[in-house]
């Protein structure tokens, strides 16, 4: 499996991507703190498709941001 990385490191290494982590470290205050990167992609669906390849606790992190000129109504 991959090396454990902090979420901060993941955000700088995999910009604007969806990142799948195995054995994530979770803080009740800040959420996902890091984990083993097992897959990453610009495409969210690609990450979802790979979920079943990995067993155990997992996490998904999105490292991008909503563009400044975009508004969101959910």
């Amino acid at each position, binding site marked *: 499996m991959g090396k454990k990385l902090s979420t901060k490191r993941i955000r700088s290494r995999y910009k604007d991507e969806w990142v799948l982590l195995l054995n994530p470290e979770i803080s009740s205050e800040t959420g996902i703190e890091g984990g083993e990167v097992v897959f990453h992609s610009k495409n*969210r669906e690609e990450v*979802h498709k790979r*979920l*079943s390849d990995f067993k155990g606790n*997992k996490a998904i992190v999105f490292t991008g941001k*909503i563009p400044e000129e975009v*508004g969101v109504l959910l």
Partner: protein
Amino acid sequence: MADIKFNSNEKLIFLDIGIASSDGSWIIYLPVVLDTGATTTILPADILVDLGYDPGHPGLSRVRLITGSGVGYAPSITIKSLIVGGEKINNVSVLCHDLPAEAGIDGLLGLNFLKNFDFTVEYSSGRLRFIKIQE
């Protein structure tokens, strides 16, 4: 009580939630948005399937879903537990619906979860606080 940091400079209130698998043996953590405008928590079907749920089961009720862009229907499923900031609520109903990936989230944390708490949003400090309402 949960005391959660969020980035008050973002356009939405993003937070990570944990969803237990159908047998309760493992958890997946996902980015969602806190949404007091959503009656129900929303999660994508792909993730629920991976967790061992069956959102395609013909026996599930389908809920009318009114969104900013129209009206549709989404299956409703009960998940074993949902965790936010270390606070866990069991047997939470969620709607199976895929939100656009451009929003950078996998789902919405809606009022059916939030109503279990007195919660505050402090933009000055970037803090969310959840105090569980005792039954």
